[in-house]
């Protein structure tokens, strides 16, 4: 059974066991506009909470997407290399960015659930 968390930096992560799938929220996607490029990391890379893991680019902005928790990257959504628009179309499903292990699951405690996140973005 999975559980979905949200961060103040507009990322979501869906946790199943010790693996989280990470992406940007619908709200973030709307703010960024049409994405033209997603700079994906290499698998196996260790990331720390708050560190930049991915860069998403629209025609006018390049934005870092931060790792919401510590861990290491196990998979990336390679479909985005040829079609970054998937993130715009389905940010919270097919437009996922990467999967990662959780080395410190207690960090999840500080994150929001969907209701709290939606309240934050108003």
């Amino acid at each position: 059974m999975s559980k979905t968390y949200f961060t103040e930096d507009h990322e979501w992560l869906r946790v199943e066991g010790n693996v989280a799938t990470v992406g940007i929220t619908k709200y973030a996607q709307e703010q960024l506009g049409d994405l033209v490029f997603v700079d994906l990391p290499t698998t196996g890379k260790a990331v720390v909470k708050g560190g930049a893991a991915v860069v998403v680019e629209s025609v006018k902005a390049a934005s870092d997407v931060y790792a919401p928790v510590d861990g290491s990257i196990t998979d990336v959504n390679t479909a985005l290399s040829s079609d970054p628009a998937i993130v715009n179309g389905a940010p919270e499903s097919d437009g996922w960015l990467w999967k990662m292990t959780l080395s410190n699951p207690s960090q999840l405690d500080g994150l929001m659930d969907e209701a709290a996140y939606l309240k934050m973005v108003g």
Partner: protein
Amino acid sequence: MTAPFSARHIGPSDADRKSMLKTLGVTSVETIISQTIPANIRLGHDLDLPEAVSEAEALAELQEKLAHNNVLKSFIGQGYHGTNVPPVIQRNLFENPAWYTAYTPYQAEISQGRLELLFHFQTLVCELTGLDVASASLLDEATAVAEAVGIAVRHHKGERDRIIIAGALHPQVTDVIETRAGPLGLTIDCEYIDAKTAAVIVPWPDTYGVYRDFKQTIKQAKAAGALVIAVCDPLALVVTESPASWGADIAAGSTQRFGVPIAFGGPHAAYLAVTDALTRLMPGRLVGQSVDTKGRPGYRLALQTREQHIRRDKATSNICTAQALLANMAAAYSIWHGPEGLSEIATQVHSLASRFAAAVTEAGNTVAGNSFFDTVTVSAPGRANAIAQDAERGGRFVRAIDADRVAVSFDEASSELDAFELAELFGASSLPAEAETKLPAPRKGKFLTQAVFHENRSETQMMRFLRRLADKDLALDRAMIPLGSCTMKLNAAAEMMPVSWPSVANLHPFAPDKHTKGIREMIAELENWLCEITGFAAVSLQPNAGSQGEYAGLLAIRAYHASRGQAHRTVCLIPSSAHGTNPASASMVGFDVVVVKCTEQGEVDVDDLTAKAVQHADRLAALMVTYPSTHGVFEETIKDICAIVHDHGGQVYLDGANLNAMVGLARPGDIGGDVCHMNLHKTFAIPHGGGGPGVGPIGVAAHLKKFLPGHVTRKTRQAVSGAPWGSAGILAISWMYIRMLGPDGVRKASENAILSANYIATRLSAHFPVLYKGDNGRVAHECIFDFRPFKETAGVSVEDVAKRLTDYGFHAPTMSWPVAGTLMVEPTESEPKVELDRFCDAMISIAAEIQMMADGKMSKTDNPLVNAPHTAEEVTADVWDHPYTRAKAAFPSGAGQAAVKYWPPVSRIDNVYGDRNLVCSCPPIEAIAV
């Protein structure tokens, strides 16, 4: 007696000024200035500059000065070669204001002509190098190779720090690479290739003209995962194998010899090409093909997220501009000659070089290497200087590499007689009619098969081709270009004329000093005048753009701290409102950027600045601050700001992008700046060239003088450009500007720039909010109008307004910078009142159009703004189904506009499509014919 030049340069007449002052509710220009510029920074006296002279007098004076140059025929080479500028290109492009007064093509729809020609430039470079992607040019060969090194370092994500130079580059290129490498902690050597090697640089050919065998080296580089950077002469590539075919990942070099004058060192367009995989690591401008709203092909600047104005300190480089005018000349040259013509030129150059080599070998001399293109290095133990002097007596420059070697470099302008008489200097008595080719592996297959390189061979066609392209663009020869922070002022004809004189255009930058007295005297005068104008002790004219000035200035600050045992000072404070180049430059000198907040009024937050200066006092290196500010305001606190930074051990870098508001009224050096760059292409009348050239000299206070850039040919180091005085060939423009305006004229120019900006701010403030003003409600030389509210009320974006201005016949102001959703307007002193009014009327008319949508009288999704710009094709189509008239679409200023109408060739270009489907060169014809 004709009117003084100042009355020609400054747009508004005396009567206009009176009327404008009335609109502002004051009676004198001085009142406006005193309301605008803080009293504590005003310059209390006239600048000590020579009194103004007329256009004819200034031209005569400069001509006499430049007569002290001896322009001998050059065989020096070393990156600068003789070329025959095709007269059809000289007259219809190089000397044509439709080309040279245009701005950087950010507004794609009104820039299709030069974007198209730059696209052809990229195609040319891809064809010659065999690589996938070429940029729209860089500033010079030396910085292009340094930028290529930057790509390699980024490619390895900073994990590799060794650069191998595999053979002898031109000394000035090596010098710039070393300058760049130092602060980034890169080591450069010629030793083994290992797992820490980011790049291997291969000169093709080397500075002695020789092609060495690099097969083993390239194999090792590939095995170690290092990138191979080929530094190639593009004319040689016409007849030799492409670098991609032998393993190059990146190629760089100069396209100067494609029909661009030597001009004492520049400006010239460097090229840079990479494999597909490296595209997003490329610095600088890249033209891409996209589509407009009707699906028609159209060009635009692509992948801008790489650049400093978006990525700031994480940008691929601090490069802002290109050498658009010169790249376009090189593209036009190759279109004019086509592949056959280029091959003939290259073959002829090589033939002269190989016949010369055969003659001197026959006479008992030894030449370097087995394989060369145009340059032959001859051994002459102990006699090199004597031979060079003999050559000068015969009217020719050759290159004495050292006491024992002479290099002779042939080019398009060389003749058989030249080759013979030069060979005689080495004891030869004849020149063989033929000689064996000494080229490395020849080019395989056809190249430049694209139609454009075959269609324009008669002069009539070429003239019309260039005219057709120019007609697509909106340059200063048609209308005001009110770009904030860009200072699109008049580039007067008299200022431009010396650029074409042979005494400037044909002078080699490394000619012996005794032959270049005239131009160096002009340069020294210009340096002195710029010192006087800025209040500094010394000026370096070497930086080829404002960004390069920033880099040179920060290097000087870094070296100053190091000289005092304070090398640990690496914190650079930069206000959040700063141009993206500032943090990008700081990061290139290894500084750590700390952002200082701005207040809601757009001014530097002095409390935050103080707190951060205190916090980082032990490590504070510098503050970079733009003055007047990027928000177009003279901050009252500037002197305090400078004092706070000095008190905490830092130096003040003053960004002079907005210097046009200050000349003769206040001086950066007096305010407290330690370094300041000037943009000669803004304040001092050098045209923007459609996206370069630029010239970005720096002025420094006395304690920084010894840290200014040097040059290997002047026996000093730490160069930031390939040529000792950068783009020396266009410095005459600024010399003429200052000489013709004099102390009175340059001050009046600034006063009028401020007056005109305030006039526009006042006329439009009832319609659009003016975002920032000084304490007395005045703006400096530019003003920012806020369009953000209209998104909500009328569904109109600032981009819609910018594109709608095209329908009115204007180039848009600076869009969404420094604040998103705004337009920044800078009229400059040169625009006459009638043009200022035409612009204000257009803006007021647009305000009324916006009101229609706000009031619900016009659709928010189908209206003249969201559909702008309107092409002739659309407004003359049989079907017209918009809720406004065709006349409203095309002639919004009224029926009178029809006679002077500028028609955009495309409707709005799709930026997203262009970046998702990157096309930045034209495929060869066989790839199209499926």
